[in-house]
Structure formats: structure tokens, C-alpha cells
């Protein structure tokens, strides 16, 4: 069934309420997910997952259409914590690691179901939002266009 509002609007509303908006994630889990999704989609010269409120998208997904994935997330977070300790003691939390350490931990779980879900959710949060993903890709958010649309049809028109 078609939702009555776009996901980007829904997420912006939840983000405005801050941590009190979380329906599934604890504050500790949310902090780890922010760090994880930022490693997938970091802030560079353009915004990253955190600015797009990916953690709020993930919480909303886990409270809604992906509620059967909560177990995958919880097991995945426990696995990440274990790997963090194993690889970088005395650190105990992924969010405590440096950028390169985070990349190393994430690299070690690349093929897991948890990583695949986390990456999918992070991408949906960011690239489903015209303000972030479309801007990054260079997709003009206008709702109407007129020819020429690209370089090659413009060039042919000039021929």
C-alpha cells in the first residue's frame, strides 16, 4: 500500500524529536549504528549517513516493514562489538574506534546478512532523499524537464 507521506518527510519528523523518537533502538545501539552507517557512507566534502538521519530510518524500518530483522541487527551489533574487542583492545565499542579501525572491522563482516541489511537501509535513507542522495548523484530535483536532456541530444540538436 502506498504511504501517505514520503519516507524522507517521515524521517525528518522523527529526527526532529531526537532520541525520544526511537521505537526499537536503545541509545547505546543507536550510537553504534550511527558510527556503522557513517563508515558505509561517510561525510566527505558532501554530507554522510548521519546528516541524512540514517539511524532514524533504520529505527523506523525495524519498527515497521523490517520488524523481522531486529534479531539480525542485534546479533550483528554483538558480533561487531566482539570483533572490536578482538581486533582493537582495549576498545570495546565500534564507535570508539578511529576511522581506519572502523573500516577494518566493517571489512571483516562485509559478507554477512547484517552488513547487507545495514548497507541497504543506509542507502535507502540517503539516496531515497532528494536533499542528500539526488544532490550527491547530480540528479536535478526539479519535477519537470524540457529537452535537451543531456550533452549528446543537445549536441545533435546543434548539428
Amino acid at each position: 500500500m502506498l504511504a501517505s507521506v514520503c519516507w524522507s518527510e517521515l524521517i525528518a519528523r522523527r529526527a526532529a524529536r531526537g532520541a525520544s523518537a526511537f521505537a526499537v533502538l536503545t541509545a547505546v545501539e543507536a550510537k553504534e549504528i550511527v558510527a556503522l552507517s557513517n563508515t558505509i557512507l561517510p561525510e566527505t566534502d558532501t554530507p554522510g549517513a548521519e546528516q541524512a538521519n540514517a539511524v532514524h530510518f533504520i529505527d523506523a524500518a525495524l519498527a515497521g516493514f523490517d520488524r523481522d530483522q531486529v534479531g539480525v541487527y542485534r546479533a550483528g551489533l554483538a558480533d561487531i562489538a566482539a570483533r572490536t574487542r578482538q581486533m582493537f583492545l582495549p576498545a570495546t565499542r565500534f564507535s570508539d574506534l578511529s576511522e581506519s579501525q572502523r573500516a577494518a572491522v566493517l571489512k571483516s563482516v562485509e559478507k554477512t546478512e547484517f552488513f547487507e541489511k545495514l548497507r541497504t537501509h543506509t542507502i535507502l535513507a540517503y539516496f531515497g532523499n532528494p536533499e542528500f542522495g539526488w544532490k550527491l548523484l547530480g540528479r536535478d530535483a526539479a519535477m519537470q524537464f524540457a529537452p535537451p536532456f543531456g550533452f549528446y541530444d543537445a549536441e545533435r540538436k546543434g548539428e
Partner: protein
Amino acid sequence: MKNGTPGAADFLVIGSGAAGGVMAKELATAGFRVVVLEQGPWLKAGDFRHDEVSVAYRSGLTNNHQLQPNTFRSAPGERAKLKPAVEYGRMVGGGSVHFTANYWRFHPDDFRERSVYGGVPGADLRDWPITYAELEPYYTKAEQELGISGLGGVNPFEGARSKPYPLPPMPVKSSGVLLERAARKLGLHPYPAPVAVLSQPYRGRGACVHCGFCESFGCEMNAKSSTLAALIPAAVKTGRCEIRPHSYVRKIEVGKDGRVTGAVYFDRDRREVFQRARAVVLCANGAETPRLLLESKSNLFPHGLGNNHGTVGKYLMFDAGGLVLGLCERPVNEYKSVVATRVLHDFYAADAKRGFYGGGGLDARMDYYPAGFAMTGLPPDEPAWGAEWKRKVSQYYTRLTGVLAHSTCLAVETNSISLDAEVEDAWGLPAIRVTFRNHGDDLKTVEFLAARQKEILEAAGCTKVWPDASSFETSYSRHLMGTCRMGNDPRSSVVDRWNRAHEVANLFIVDGSSLVTSGRQQPTATIQALAYRAAEHVGEAARRGEV
């Protein structure tokens, strides 16, 4: 059980999509009382949004596999597992609302492949009981009624046309210009894509504004010629056609005389309602149509309605063909306007010299929306996450073009829709069980075409060319064809040459399930031409008291 409209409808149309919308409008206009039962909601143009998450990713306009799961297996003997395999429009207007709007006619030889090419071992390749010439006036009628944009006579491989397209083609995109450049070098014959999108205002609807949200989305401008936008308002305006959304049919009932009497459906509140009718027109698509027939068991039809020869659900044909992508030096901006503006049919006909049976049409496109692109759109040698990945997606997206193949899917008896004995949907009905594995020649055709697609993109000057792995998936389809196919022989087909069920005089089946062969995909024009032809015939037969 609640009763529907007091008295019987003349025609009960089940499904309101590409075919159901045509049947409803034509029969109501011809003076009959029509009730249309549709599983999904009745949305208006103003309900459509450009939200990739809720529409494309979360099946906003299509069947939701969480509510209506299907199971899948690749061969009869295997245990089927839960796995999404079929996708169809689930709303008033059906798949015509979210389809890409490519509007190809089948070629004359598509109706007589068996005679032209002979048999194919392992497949059940058959001629249709009708010819292209018999269907041609109805292709024309569909194009005129819906307002198809295109340019006839340019494609040297197409059949004869009795009328030009009613509207000029859409403006060419960069992907189309690049296809033309490559075609000049390679001696191929591209032509402007015929699309069910208005290039100019037509019959009270405005022209396309090139927003770029055709595929998977509904058109908020009413410029895409879905049956929701183009036909259903006129059907309702007759005062004789009632559209009932949220009406999920679970059984077609049969009387002692072997004629259908109406259908039982769940309404929005999941109450059962019986709607009586003088005749039933089943237009529920190539997966839901056979499922409903198989569920409609009775003393006279113990194996399902119209299935005393065991043919219902068999010969399922899927979509086939992959996407090859190419990186260009300058911006292509494929995200604007309709998906495809140039097509070529040079490889459409089968050719025995290739050593396998099949062929395909190609169109120029890069049809990824942003999130889908970020998930799987980069070539395999690029990173999949992190800062470098982020940089790459931003460099590639606007500079990509591509060529998509639409290719043969051979009819194989064991490929089928049946009822799953264990899995149920949210209404407690047996889930669709899909059994499907491509004939070996289908896969060879896809491979052959992929090599042609690569040559074209290289000739177009792309600096990097690669097959998009995710698009070569063969166990999931949006084109659902062949499960109640048309034929003269009741032992090997379900409907006759007029779409009337062989075994039930007042049951008509009109949708993708009628197709005998897959053509080269893009079945909507053929489904709608069949619907216009069937509607004319059914109406005349009813007036003579022969339904």
C-alpha cells in the same frame, strides 16, 4: 455471506489492469452493466509521489510479498521455498499504472513461430490460433484509444500498420542519440520507441513533463496512458460500470449447468461477498488468473475451473534479457523523461544459424533510480561502500547509458503457476507456487544479445562497458504470460481464439495468460489488442444471446 449488487451484473470483470480496464470500458460503453472487482486500492493521480522507498522498494503499487507470499522452485520434484518471483500491479489500473510504457506490437511471425521455425526440443512452441492480420485492427484501436506516441514505418522489421500512431514520438534522449550513432557504424536500424505516454495533449489529458518517474511509479500528470487514467473514468461515466477496489476474489462459482454464476470475494473488511453475474471476464494477470481458476474447484471441475484437461497454469513464460551499461565522457542525464526513446529490432527474429532458438529487441536506457543505483549500479571492480564508493557513484550516475534486451522466453510445460499446499496468504488462501526454469535456448539468446549490447555501447564511444549482474536474474518476473493460453485444441489450451474458456461458455479470460508465445516481451500492447478484440466479440455474442 453478504450479497453484492442486487440482481446480476451482465459482466463481472475480475482485475482492472491493462486488459480489465479495456474490457470494463468497452462493455459498459456497449450498454452492458459491469461490475469490476479489484484487489488493490483506487488511487488518483494526486496520490502518486516520487518516493523511491515507498513506491519502488516497498512495492507501493504492486503485490506485497509480506501479505501475499509466493513460493518458488526451479523444477517439479523440488520443494518450493518462500521467494518473491512474481510481481504485478495491485490497484485500479493494475500494471498499466506503473509499467515503463514501452508499447511494442508483436511481429507477424510471433503468431506463427512453429510454422516458420519448426519445433524446439524441450519446448512447446506453437502457432497462435489467430494471425497478426486479425489482431492488427485492434492494435490500431488500442493505440488510438490510449494515445500512443511513436513513428510508424521506420522500423523495417515491424508488421503492416493500418494507421499511424496518433501522437508524434517523444523527444530523443542522449541514450537514444548514442544508440543511433552506434547503429550507423554497425549497420543497424533504430527507431523512435512507441510509448504509452502522451507527447502532446490528447483527449483531455496533458502532455508528459519529462519528470523521469515512469517505470515503477504512477504518473501524477495523467500523461502515462494507464487504464486508470485513460479508460476507467470513461467506463464509470457511462453510469453502467461500478469499480469495487479492495475486493479480493477467492472463488468463481459454477451452477449445475456448468456455467459460472458469479464470484465470492473478500471486501475491505475481509467479509465475504457474493456477486452474481451473467458472465465473468477474468483479467487478473498471468499468475493470479490461473491461481483463481485452480482455487475454484467444484463437482464439475474437481481440478479447478476450466481445467478438466490439466492445462491451467502451465506454460508460464517470464521476462528475459539483461542490461548492459556504458560510461560516457559527457552527461547523459538518463534520469529525465521516459525510460527509452530508441529501440532496434535487428536481432528480433530467430535465426537457425545461431544454433539456438530465440531473439530479442533492444532499447537504450539506464533505468536506475538513485537508491537502486547506489545498491547495485556500479561495475564490479569499484568499491561497494566508504568514501571512495561515494565518490564513484557521484561520478557515474549522470554519465551512464545502457542497452536493455527484451528476449524470447520459450513455453515449457513444466514451468507453471500452481497452489502451494503449505503456505497461505494473509487471507488464508493458498499461496502461488511458481515452478520455473528457462529453456536452455532462452539463456543462449540472452548471452548472444548481451554481446550485441556490448558492441553497441563500445561503438557508441563508451569508455567502460559492463553487464549489470542484477538485471540478469531469471527467477523473478514482471511479465507473466502463457498460463491459460489460447488455442483451437481444448486439450492443449484453456481459451479459444476469442478468449472464451473452452470448458465454460460464459467465462472469458483476457490478460497475459492468453499469450501462446512471449514475443520479445513488452506484452502490454498485445494484451490490450486482445482485450479490444475480445470485448467486441463478447459484446456481439451477448447481444445475440450466445454468452
